[in-house]
């Protein structure tokens, strides 16, 4: 294997695998940050560091790297790259070189994010970077702005590439209603990226200009306004959760339908009602992040209604997932366990979000551990489980080998139990008043044992993740050959050899008239 060939590759599958490696490295670093935070919180007062700034830097890194360096690139970089051309029967993406550029930019961004630890004054402004603190801190705000800009740019050019690919490069016979749910989901995510990333780019550029160039967009003493930043930031960052949610739920659809050998229940409802509904509502709910920020009252009430309405498309998708399981034929493989885990975690995460849609209720729980617990359930952990489900599911395809099923299941149960211990407890103490982003909880001594329980849970959880990653590394090197279609799926990516050669198929695949990516009866 030739390193140079990999670095300069334009093959969408290799680009995807580069994304995978980079995002898993980011995940490992951000995960270690989480463990450091949990260690610090295991006792009241200083535990492993006496300097609160260290905790704040870990938290900044954890949040920013998990979202921008791990989940978004793993989903819209690895899965989109590896799966979309294979699922639509294309030889490659529309612009392979642009694709290579996007993965290089991604690496620059990740390296910048990780360089946080090697510069004298690392950013300590949380992944949200709110001014005025971000414009007066001694921490390096520019580092934050550049990381976000570069990763955002990588994602935008990826978006253009995939929209073009799906529009023009489908194999004959693959009509829009025969696209995999994952392809639809990813298209939805890229539409959101293209619309909203520029707003985030603006927001983070302006804070650095305020800090280093003396502009005053957000300084009220000179006519600026602090709330404007929060609006700009969340105008992107709420849709960003759907940029994560859509592809991850798409992966779950593929995994559940493959391992249950059952057609996706009510396909059109998912595509038009679910994905379409989310894309339409995504931009109208950002104020729910500003319920306690002093926004106009009418806006808070209006966006309560739009936020609650998100339950409609999301609920339709959940109904479809569960409907897919009806009278199916389930093999409880590791990817299937992770996918069922997502259904469970996302159910809890989604339902606990309903109180957070109601401004009057958030006046007590906003900015507490209730919120931290909720979004780990709904996005952080559900998303990570989905990513793990997908990696296990396509592992035979991209590596040509099989992972170890027993270790896969051990890893799953450890992470599943660990996550529930950690994040359920978070919601519990949050309702009782534990605020988030606290280095110390000296005036909440009653929460010490809960914090210790969470630290223990986090260790179990981390162990489970580590086992999964080791399982992949060992499987990729010496697992037994997997065969072309180990799950018996009719979806197009399983019709070529494992791993697929450059160009994917010797000649473009063609599909029968009654073919559908979920037509199991014939398979």
């Amino acid at each position, binding site marked *: 294997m030739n390193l140079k060939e990999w670095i300069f590759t334009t093959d969408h599958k290799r680009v995807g695998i580069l994304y995978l490696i980079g995002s898993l490295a980011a995940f490992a670093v951000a995960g270690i940050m989480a463990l450091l935070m949990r260690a610090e919180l295991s006792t009241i007062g200083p535990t492993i560091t006496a300097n*609160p700034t260290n905790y*704040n830097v870990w938290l900044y890194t954890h949040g920013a790297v998990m979202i921008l360096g791990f989940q978004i690139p793993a989903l819209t970089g690895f899965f989109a790259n590896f799966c979309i051309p294979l699922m639509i029967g294309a030889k490659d993406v529309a612009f392979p070189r642009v694709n290579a550029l996007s993965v290089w930019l991604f690496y620059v961004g990740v390296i910048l994010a990780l360089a946080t630890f090697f510069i004298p004054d690392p950013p300590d402004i949380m992944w949200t970077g709110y001014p005025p603190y971000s414009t007066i801190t001694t921490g390096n705000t520019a580092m934050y702005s550049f990381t976000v800009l570069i990763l955002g740019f990588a994602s935008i050019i990826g978006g253009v590439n995939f929209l073009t690919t799906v529009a023009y490069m489908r194999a004959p016979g693959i009509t829009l209603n025969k696209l995999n749910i994952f392809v639809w989901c990813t298209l939805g995510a890229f539409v959101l990226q293209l619309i909203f990333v520029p707003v985030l780019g603006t927001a983070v550029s302006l804070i650095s200009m305020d800090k280093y160039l003396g502009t005053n967009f957000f300084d*009220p003493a000179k006519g600026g306004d602090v709330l404007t930043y929060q609006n700009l930031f969340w105008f992107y960052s709420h849709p960003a959760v759907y940029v994560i949610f859509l592809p991850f739920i798409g992966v779950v659809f593929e995994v559940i339908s493959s391992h249950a050998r059952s057609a996706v229940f009510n396909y059109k409802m998912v595509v038009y009602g679910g994905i379409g509904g989310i894309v339409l509502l995504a931009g109208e709910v950002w104020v729910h992040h500003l319920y306690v920020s*002093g926004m106009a009252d*009418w806006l808070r009430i209006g966006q309560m209604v739009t936020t609650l309405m998100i339950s409609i498309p999301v609920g339709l998708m959940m109904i479809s997932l569960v409907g897919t399981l009806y009278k199916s034929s389930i093999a409880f493989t590791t990817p299937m366990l992770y996918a069922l885990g997502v259904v469970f975690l996302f159910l809890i995460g989604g*339902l606990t979000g309903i*109180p957070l849609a109601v401004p009057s209720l958030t006046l007590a729980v906003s900015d507490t551990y209730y919120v931290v617990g909720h979004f780990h359930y709904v996005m952080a952990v559900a998303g990570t489980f989905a990513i793990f489900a997908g990696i296990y599911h396509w592992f035979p395809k991209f590596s040509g080998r099989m992972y170890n099923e027993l270790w896969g299941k051990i890893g799953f149960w450890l992470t599943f139990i660990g996550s529930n211990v950690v994040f359920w407890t978070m919601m519990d103490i949050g309702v009782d008043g534990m605020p*988030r982003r606290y280095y110390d909880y000296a*005036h909440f001594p009653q929460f010490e044992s809960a914090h210790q329980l969470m630290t223990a849970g986090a260790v179990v959880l981390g162990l489970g993740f580590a086992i999964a990653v080791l399982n992949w590394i060992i499987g990729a090197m010496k697992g037994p050959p997997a065969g072309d279609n180990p799950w018996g799926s009719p979806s197009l990516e399983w019709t070529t050899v494992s791993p697929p050669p450059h160009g994917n198929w010797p000649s473009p695949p063609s599909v029968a008239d009654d073919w559908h990516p979920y037509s199991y009866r014939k398979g």
Partner: protein
Amino acid sequence: MHKQHVKGKMCRASAAVCGAVLAASSWAAETAQSAAPKINDPARGWDSLWHEVIVDITIIGILFAVVTAWFVFTSRRTAGNQTGASPKLSAASAVGWTVLPIFIFLSIDLYTAANGWVLWNHYRDVPADRLEVKLESGMYSWDYTYPNGVRTQNELIVPAGKPVMLRMTSRDTLHSHYIPDFRVKEDSMPGRVTYLWFHPTKPGEHLVTCAEYCGVMHSYMAGRVIVKSADEYAAWMKREETQLAAAGAPAAAETGAPVAKPAARPKKT
């Protein structure tokens, strides 16, 4: 007062807009009306609405989980080449399975929204008979100024039985004045004035803690609300007033009011 008035109007205008949708629940409107004369303690309302929503989502969650578990456990694959045997949806049932859930979800949403809106009005409509205190937050303290000029730091001393309103701003970064016991918080910001109110009913102490990341010592930024009986409060206030007077008017004029950023003209929220 006058600001309050504008706010009420805005609230009502927006109410009209949302009302078109929310009027579906006439129940909400009734509650809002019958609520007008007496004091609606938002903390009480919070407890009961929170409880209700948690019960609702628990029921939905359990229903969903049970159905899922049932499908999963009855669908174990028994032979290697077995495939699923779910029936194919007819066009009509596909539409039905879309439209029916939409209506169910929508009605749950609107019901929740109506309840949330009523409680919201309790949180935002401050009773006229109230104690109004100014709060300026800073890294890392809570500085209170009473109507008569008395000032305290990190201790908000209030009489039991009287609604307390804080008009808040900040001299540096964002902070959030969070009183867990009274189920309320709102950010304080430089250049803007925000408010919150709560209703202390009996003497006691309550933690105040900062809920918006404001800097290195964020987690140590705490204070207390000390509720005294009306008499004790009056006595305390008397002492403070005497002290303030003793300090003398000239001194006050010299040092000026609490330091506020100059040109920052507060905007209404």
